[in-house]
């Protein structure tokens, strides 16, 4: 009896310990968001004081940010870069990933090694010739095309992640389709694609977020033309000309973060699966 009670007591203590640690960790992760929101609702003067709670709730900050010249253009550019870029990435990466996962051919291993190697490379490695090519040869700097066009030729990370996913689809399904007389294109479209939806969703989300978050690309190609800026790049210039309007900067920050977080709640599963696929399954 006493033994059981002691056992239950340690179980309760364990529960309390684990959950207090979890709450402490949750505070570390959540408090920055809370301060961010609170500051975005302060007046300009109060944001420069040490007070943490808004004295008056300045909801107008958000309207002011929204109506800042350029903000809607940056929004449109971001949607174009992220939306069109995502579609192009998926369409061009799926066949490559399919071949790497399901075809047997000489050089398959080498091709995969190259995909992984390019995936790991910093964009700075080839940026100088690429910039000179787009800007001097094609006169397309100040536009988003140098960022979008390459995505029509497959993205290494997308190919790798999709290939990892396609490996989990048993070959028997493909063989059955081939026995029924399907060519490879039909097999891919009719059999593989419907089964690969979660993998495609994960790749699409990652690509969308990559473009949404990209700072280096727009800085290289679009910095001298504010009409081609994206939200991530424009956000940084959001500070006032002579001093930092922290309340407006934080309101703009919230507006740039919000779509990402909303999208996450709709597609949580695809996201977490994608991350797991890159790191755990070989």
């Amino acid at each position, binding site marked *: 009896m006493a033994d059981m009670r002691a056992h239950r007591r340690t179980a309760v203590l364990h529960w309390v310990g684990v959950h207090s640690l979890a709450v402490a960790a949750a505070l570390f*992760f959540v408090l920055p968001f809370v301060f961010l929101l609170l500051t975005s609702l302060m007046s300009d003067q109060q944001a420069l004081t040490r007070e943490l709670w808004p004295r008056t709730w300045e909801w107008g900050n958000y309207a002011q940010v929204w109506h800042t010249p350029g903000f809607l253009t940056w929004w449109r550019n971001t949607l174009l870069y992220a939306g069109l870029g995502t579609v192009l990435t998926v369409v061009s990466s799926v066949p490559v990933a399919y071949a*790497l996962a399901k075809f047997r051919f000489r050089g398959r291993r080498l091709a995969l090694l190259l995909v992984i190697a390019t995936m790991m490379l910093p964009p*700075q490695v080839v940026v100088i010739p690429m910039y000179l090519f787009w800007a001097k040869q094609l006169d397309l700097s100040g536009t988003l095309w140098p960022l979008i066009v390459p995505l029509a030729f497959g993205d290494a990370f997308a190919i790798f992640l999709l290939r990892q996913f396609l490996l989990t689809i048993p070959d028997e399904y493909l063989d059955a389709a081939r026995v029924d007389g399907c060519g490879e294109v039909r097999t891919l479209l009719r059999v593989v694609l419907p089964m690969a939806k979660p993998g495609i969703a994960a790749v699409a989300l990652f690509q969308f977020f990559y473009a949404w978050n990209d700072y280096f690309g727009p800085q290289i190609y679009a910095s001298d033309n504010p009409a081609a800026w994206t939200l991530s790049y424009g956000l940084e210039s959001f500070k006032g000309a002579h001093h930092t309007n922290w309340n407006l900067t934080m309101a703009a920050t919230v507006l740039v973060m919000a779509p*990402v977080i909303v999208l996450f709640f709709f597609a949580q599963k695809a996201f977490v699966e994608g991350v797991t696929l890159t790191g755990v399954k070989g």
Partner: protein
Amino acid sequence: MTTAADTPRTPALRARHRRAALRTLAFLSPWLIGSAVFFAYPLLSTVYFSFTRYDGFRPPVFNGLDNWSYVFTDYPLFWPAMRNTLWLVVVMVSCRVVFGLGVGLLVTRVKTGAGLFRTLFYLPYLAPPVAATLAFVFLLNPGTGPVNTLLDAAGLPAPGWFTDAGWSKPALTALAVWGTGDLMVIFMAALLDVPKEQYEAAELDGAGAWARFRHITLPNISPVVLFAVVTGVIQAMQYYTQPTVASKAAAGIIGGSGQQTEPGYPGRSTLTLPQTVYHLGFQRFDYGSACVLALVLFALSMACTALLMRRRGGLAGAGD
């Protein structure tokens, strides 16, 4: 595109193999074209430009190893960038891995509200880097930031964070640790894959919590730990957006207008290798020397990637 063992002997077989090879090429073609145009060609150009004096207007002029000796001996930002990168590789990566593993362990033990905790821990990973960095520069603002206000209230020292050369890298590390949700997810998946029987057997043998972690958990998840370390090192070498935005925003607080002459404020302490490529190429228009730096970055990244792939045959697809 067939293996030597099944070399076709009859014309019909040979035709079928040729069709298979063409089909493979067709499926791979987007990437084959893309990597030739957007990777192989520019990489070769980078190598070529690194041996030339080139400002983007006048044609490149061959100047031998001048750029290379300039970057390694006379370019004042190179060694600070290398030192900062080394610091980030050692401190930032270990903090992220230890913290990510700790949070992963914690989440697998939470009984009540596990889904909520997991979501809360993951969210910062999604915050756009520019937005997250601006938020942290504000939060850690030495005069009026909420963090220092709280530290003050708790009677703790309140450092200058992004405006103090001794604290700017710890501040960047805090930002990176905040966004550790990706590591939490992969550690969590690995932890849940550890066979339960091993824990039960160890418990019967009277192994304590630490012994179980040390002798069962760690060996089982070590491939994932290594993956996290190596990809972390690669990320640290590529670290660009956060240090760039942080130094500009922090200089803006002090300087007022956000103007800044030299990257890496305060005192070159947030300067990383990718920033030097940008600085020499796009601010000084010395494309030749910038290409030297790009190649240094290339060599370092390839070394890490090779490490990752050599050890982890599975990632390279040897297992299937």
